């Protein structure tokens, strides 16, 4: 089972964790990403490519199913305006055994960073700037190829 949601609404962690339960799952791994207050960031705006974003996330989830013996994958990404402390991304993977759940969860967040069409704009004080891609993220995604 694959659940993908790209949403302006806050991510309800309790509901998402409960929804990640799958019959026969011996382990559920999850990753939650939050907006950091780096260097006085007061607001983060997430832009995305409607249609392609959802397709890219579903494609990653399907790829995870081919690489690991999974029962369920959940990917939720928030878009629009957020403030530090808000949850921006949630990923959960359910499998019979922990290794498959943990590895596939790490795979999905690494891939999401480089292969899904999202863009972050940070506001600090009066100024806003688009966040630049980090080479470390490309390296992290590369290790799964």
């Amino acid at each position, binding site marked *: 089972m694959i659940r993908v949601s790209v949403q302006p609404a806050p991510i309800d962690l309790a509901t998402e964790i409960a929804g990640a339960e799958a019959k026969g799952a011996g382990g559920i791994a999850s990753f939650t990403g939050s907006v950091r207050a780096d260097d006085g960031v007061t607001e983060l705006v997430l832009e995305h490519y409607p249609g392609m974003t959802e397709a890219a996330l579903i494609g990653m989830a399907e790829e995870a199913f081919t690489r690991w013996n999974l029962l369920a994958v959940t990917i939720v990404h928030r878009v629009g305006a957020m403030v530090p402390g808000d949850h921006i*991304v949630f990923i959960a993977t359910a499998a019979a055994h922990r290794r498959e759940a943990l590895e596939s969860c790490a795979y999905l967040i690494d891939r999401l960073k480089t292969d899904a*069409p999202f*863009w972050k704009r940070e506001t600090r004080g009066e100024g806003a700037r688009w966040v630049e891609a980090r080479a470390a993220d490309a390296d992290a995604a590369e290790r799964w190829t």
Partner: protein
Amino acid sequence: MDLLYFAWVREQIGTGQEAVDPPGAVVTVADLIDWLAKRSPGHAEAFRDPAKLRAAIDQRFVPLDAELGDAKEVAIFPPVTGG
């Protein structure tokens, strides 16, 4: 052909989408970027350094040397920064 722009590419051009009919000499995404750069000062600014641009054809990531073929929707944007 429908064009979509995101993030600072969209801001510098001043619109998130437009429809264009490029000439036959425009074969690849890189050709399209060169051709679009002449449309306005905003396009010229956004497309000044193609090394900073990424693209998708019909909602699939492609390298800039990809051929447009019979693309219906081409998106041009900076490297992605989600998660």
